[in-house]
């Protein structure tokens, strides 16, 4: 139980959730709910790992992961934006499709060793006391990217003109269309970007955080947790980043709880009977539910939260509600 180790590892695992949930935030802010995150992440994890295995270059793996998941997400865009199908069902089928494709195409990858992303210290910042060793030492480049990414996306959404268009399309597409914003094109675009980020998150797992291909266990529901985080974060990338890191640290802390024989002077039941670990493994899922309850209550109280047009197909020429 070393706080520094827990926080350090928590940042690495949290980065997975960070990219996945920010990707989902972008799609949802444009009005498209994409429940296929788990499937896209798994496909990304598979594509990234297998390309890195074939080429020896983990960066090519990252690119492949983003493209694969992005292309998969376009299926969702076609079905929901153009065909106006139900976004919930389409997202669910995207998870099935992504999972199935990843398992079929990833057959034989288990047990292989691919080239992984390098970890390095951020020169200068790593010398800082306390903060340095946790935040800026021995992390993969994706983690450092995440630090910048969340504030940048927040700035983009809230303070720039394209960001305003994004919000308009998600809140009131009729108005955006009237102003000459191409609602369909933007929705396609942000669904694709969301897919790419989910793919990046997946590849971060298989090429850095817990390297390797363990079929469906690779993601083990983190895509769903990312979607839960979006609601908890009330569609704000900064809050999503905070939530992601908290969640990451928590997962890591839970893992460490099984180690020591005593906790605070008491016998550690987990040390004696490791089967109690099953209850510990439930905690992230239960906490997601708790986070949702908190997020939903806050949203009800403050009357803010979801983009107004979330889940609604836009049909040009039909009366906007």
């Amino acid at each position: 139980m070393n706080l520094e180790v827990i926080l350090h590892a928590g940042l690495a695992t949290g980065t997975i959730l960070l990219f996945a949930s920010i990707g989902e935030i972008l799609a949802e802010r444009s009005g498209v709910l994409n429940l296929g995150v788990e499937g896209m992440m798994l496909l990304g994890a598979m594509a990234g790992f297998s390309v890195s295995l074939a080429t020896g270059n983990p960066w090519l793996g990252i690119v492949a992961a983003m493209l694969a998941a992005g292309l998969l997400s376009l299926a969702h865009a076609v079905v929901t934006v153009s065909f106006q199908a139900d976004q919930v069902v389409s997202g669910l089928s995207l998870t099935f499709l992504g999972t199935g494709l990843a398992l079929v195409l990833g057959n034989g990858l288990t047990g292989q060793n691919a080239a992984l992303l390098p970890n390095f210290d951020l020169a200068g910042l790593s010398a800082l006391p306390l903060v340095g060793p946790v935040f800026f030492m021995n992390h993969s480049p994706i983690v450092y990217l995440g630090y910048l990414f969340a504030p940048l996306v927040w700035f983009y959404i809230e303070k720039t003109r394209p960001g305003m268009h994004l919000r308009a399309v998600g809140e009131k597409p009729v108005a955006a269309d009237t102003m000459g914003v191409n609602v369909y094109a933007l929705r396609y675009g942000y669904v694709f970007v969301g897919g790419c980020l989910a793919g990046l998150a997946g590849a971060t797992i298989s090429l850095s955080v817990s390297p390797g291909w363990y079929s469906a266990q690779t993601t083990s529901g983190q895509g769903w947790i990312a979607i839960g985080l979006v609601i908890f974060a009330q569609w704000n990338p900064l809050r999503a980043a905070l939530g992601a890191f908290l969640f990451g640290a928590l997962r890591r802390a839970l893992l460490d709880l099984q180690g020591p024989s005593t906790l605070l002077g008491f016998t550690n039941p987990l040390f004696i009977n490791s089967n109690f670990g099953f209850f510990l493994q439930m905690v992230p899922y239960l906490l997601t539910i708790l986070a949702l309850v908190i997020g939903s209550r806050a949203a009800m109280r403050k009357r803010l939260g979801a983009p107004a047009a979330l889940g609604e197909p836009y049909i040009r020429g039909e009366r906007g509600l």
Partner: protein
Amino acid sequence: MWLLPPARVVSAAKAMINLPFTLLVEKRTEEVPRWLPAATSVGSVVLAFVVSGIVLAAIGANPLQVYGFFARATFGSWAAFSDTLVKATPLILVGLACSVAFKMKLWNIGAEGQFYIGAFFASLVVLVPLLPTDSSPWLMIPAMMAMGMLGGALWGFLPGLLKARFQVNEIITTLMLNYVAVLWNNFWIFDRWSDAGFQMTPTFGRNSWLPRLSDYAREYPLFSGLTLHLGVFFGLFAAAAVWWILQRSRWGYEIRLIGDNPQAARYAGVSIARNVIWVMMLSGALAGLAGMAEISGVVHRLQERISPGYGFTGIIVAWLAKLHPLGVILVSILFGALIVASREVQPSGIAQMIQGFVLFAVISSDVLLRYKIRLVRAAPQPAGPPGEFA
């Protein structure tokens, strides 16, 4: 090119090359023909198999060989067909569970967890034991059924309550509870009920087994080796019950009304919060019964992986069946076959992949129910009505 504004000629392609016809997409104003929904479902399945075949060919398998093998392994003999029906049984119940909830646009995707908790509660009857171990099967089996349904209903009640009370998104909560349910079962089978250290409970007594066809092989030699169990009748009976509830009862009317138009339901004085909880419980109870039928009819103990994802397949079953109970039975048999077949081939994700394609095809094809797409001969392009092209 973003397609499908109402009554608009999609002329992008025509503008580039002068085709002798144009594609006309217009909103349906008349009733959808009765045969069309079924036709789109069948077409979706066919399309999904074709696309999956292309993927299989791309990874070096011979799709025709794979599908031929599928067909023989699932419908090739009475024994194979019986196996298919055994796999279809939980799918019927879970498919019905999803249909009921989806009818109200309540997205219960926690049937998998409700299945596991149903199995757990049914096991309590035998393993605690709640009933004397030498009870008559006439007492044992109904008790297990009731407990299975109770467990599933409880696992549906939690997200239902959160949804009704705090408007918590039920998709995520039901999904998270799936993981919790599996871990909960694991604790009991790894620890408390472990049979000599194996990750399963001891085999249940005969009095808690659902009767199988092969039990009657002495009287009817034809039945020898057939694994089909009584649970299939639970499925058929539940389908009839769900049909009656949805189509004939006042409650079903409220469910459909909320699904179609929650605003109107609210104005009509229908309590949405109450229906959310009750429907989640009904849905959970059906999935829990599926879990009970699986351990009592097939594995005869509680163990790991009693479900190869029945709860998730049930979602596709419900959608492919257009939420119709009779359709659920037919689609379940097809998907039961897919599960039987996929046990025998590698790689293991093939069935899941085909399911994904089926679901995608079927939701895409819904567009055919809302729009008419016609080829028309190219006439001299008339000027569009004003305001039609923005």
